[in-house]
């Protein structure tokens, strides 16, 4: 866990207790710029809790998180997002009564480029900036093939498309680090293939660093270059997909004791 100039996110000794229950303990993680990493583990291993701590929704009990060499522990979630960490949620959290376009445009609020008085008086600055951000939002929607759905109300979309709207919305935050929490959940095999292409595409296009939680092994093994495995709040293995597939502790965690020998 050494910090090099190319380190984007560095998590050290991250610990979270809920009462006496250790949800995450001594979690370490380091992401280099441009990484595409996976975080896997059985249900309840503490993966989403790690995400919640990185994005500031939970305050860690102990440990430190540095993003771009500045500590983000204790910052409000919106401040962390403005520093350049965006995320999606395991159980989709779209603004369900708003249109797809507005969902994406909301993410522009911190860098909309005009102030409240500009908006109220509708001056030229408002017009140009609003047009600019609308066009950018439409571009993001186009990447995800949602261009013609922009005026649909988000809650009326099918599940797979809602997931994609959520990723588009996260991208509109202009992040440098994107956290995806089970992006493939509830998708059919065809959609999953498309999603994998998309993740590769946005990773390259926007020069992103991506960390994703996923249960679908083919997604994780297919796109991640480096994988961290958690169980009972602790890291039990790290490595390349090949190494993880052969790791006994990982197999044990997923299938139970003894299964490793059987397999």
């Amino acid at each position, binding site marked *: 866990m050494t910090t090099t100039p190319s380190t984007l996110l560095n998590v050290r000794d991250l610990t979270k207790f809920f009462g006496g229950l250790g949800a995450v303990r001594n979690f370490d993680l380091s992401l280099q710029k441009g990484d595409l990493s996976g975080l896997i583990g059985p249900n309840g291993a503490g993966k989403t809790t790690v995400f919640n701590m990185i*994005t*500031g*929704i939970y305050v860690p009990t102990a440990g430190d998180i540095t993003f771009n060499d500045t500590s983000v522990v*204790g910052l*409000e*979630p*919106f401040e962390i*997002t*403005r520093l350049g960490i*965006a*995320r999606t*949620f395991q159980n989709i*959290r*779209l*603004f*369900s*009564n*708003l249109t797809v*376009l*507005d969902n994406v*445009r*909301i*993410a*522009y*609020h*911190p860098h*909309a480029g*005009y102030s*409240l008085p*500009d*908006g*109220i*008086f*509708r001056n030229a600055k*408002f017009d140009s900036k*609003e047009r*600019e*951000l*609308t*066009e*950018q939002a*439409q*571009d*993001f929607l*186009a*990447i995800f093939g949602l*261009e*013609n759905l*922009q*005026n649909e109300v988000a809650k009326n979309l099918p599940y797979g498309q809602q997931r994609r709207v959520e990723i588009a*919305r*996260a*991208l*509109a*935050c*202009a992040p440098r680090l994107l956290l995806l929490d089970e992006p493939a959940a509830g998708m059919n095999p065809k959609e999953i293939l498309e999603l994998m292409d998309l993740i590769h595409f946005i990773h390259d*296009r*926007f020069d992103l660093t991506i960390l994703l939680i996923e249960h679908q092994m083919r997604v994780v093994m297919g796109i991640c270059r480096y994988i961290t495995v958690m169980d009972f709040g602790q890291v039990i293995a790290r490595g390349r997909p090949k190494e993880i597939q052969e790791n006994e502790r990982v197999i044990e965690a997923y299938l139970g004791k003894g299964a490793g020998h059987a397999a």
Partner: protein
Amino acid sequence: MELGFLLGSIVKIVAILGYLYGLLWVLAHPNRWVKYIGVVVAFGVVQLALTNFGGFQILTNFDSGLLFQACAMTMVALGLNLIYGFNGQFSLGQWGFYGIGAYTAADITWRWINGDARGLLVVGIGTILGGVVLIYIGRWLNRLRGVPVLSSFTLYLIGAILAGTVAVIIANAINPLLVPLLGTSSDPGMLNSPVAIQVVFFLAIVFAGIFAAEVSFLFGLPVLTLGSDYFGIATLGFTIVVNVLMINSDTILPFPEMKGGRGMVGIPKLTTWFWAFFFMVAVIIIMRNLIHSSTGRAIISVREDEVAAKAMGIDIAGSKLMAFVVGSFFAGIGGGVYAHFIGFLSPGTFGFLQSFNPLIIIVFGGLGSMTGTIAASFGWIFFLEGLLRVLLSQMGTEAPTWRFVLYPITLLLLMLIRPQGLLGNVEWGFLKTKMITPRGQRLTEKSDAVAGGA
């Protein structure tokens, strides 16, 4: 006779709503000249309708009374819709801010026509100075980071009290210079000329709105951290505390002219059709432009999903406070307009039972629908103050009671039949978001722009 009168009123109110709608459409017109000429013509038409042509008047005094009340109620209800309908914060405090606005504006003009400039001076200097102080404290606290909300509240409160004290000192120093120019109520001086009094009236209403907004900032800052129902109860408490202070305005508060529970009389009736409409249209336009800007989208996102909004980089606490302060500003302005129409303020008007009125209006009109709120405000005033009052006028002393027996029954039936409100969250015309048409596949040639923007 009564029925004819009633039908006439219905036709007139519908015509007014149609007219209002047309005016808003004209205001949204892209051509500047259409806009300006349309507005002038629009005001002229109503001015004619209100003019007494030797005993003939299209809109009777009764009609215009309903209209003024509806305008005031529209402002209050739009403010609450911003807080509850768009931002999702269940507030019962709107009526308190309405009362603050009404009493503040009334006190300014009452004192002015009675030869005392301190009302305007104290409120004017106090709100401006207070605003500056609050902004500077806010900046300082922002730099410190992570100051607990109760501490920032205490600091803001101290700042506001200091600003108020300074304003009182300055006002007491300036007042003797102005008193000779004001004259007395029987012999008005230069500053009480018809034009000057209009200016004072305008300032009184604007300052009353700002004052209500600053009070709401101080109150909202700590209280907006509470969960939804707890916030609702705390704001209800605010309304009741304000009401108690009104009842004791001549004993506990140093305002003998407000006459406590007996009610404040002799407020100049300065609200004209022009002013009522001017303020209402201003509020509608501000609200519409706010909602359809980036800030408005941030406010709505807080209602939809706070956690997701946070993750999108939206300052939840700031958004809530912004909506609350702007909503209270509208309520304060509405209160000022109401006070100068009715000429008499009684604490009973701002009591617990009435505090639900704006809530009922916005739920009935549709939470998150400005069109619905405007229509419901007019409809509600018309129904309660017009229809029931006229219909029941033969019933003698029991008429007011019957009014409030029929009113809740109507309310119950409406809620059972249409729980989502008249219009849901649908908007019409001017108040609607501009629909943005999807473009064709332009990704390939626009890709550089995307990368640059992201």
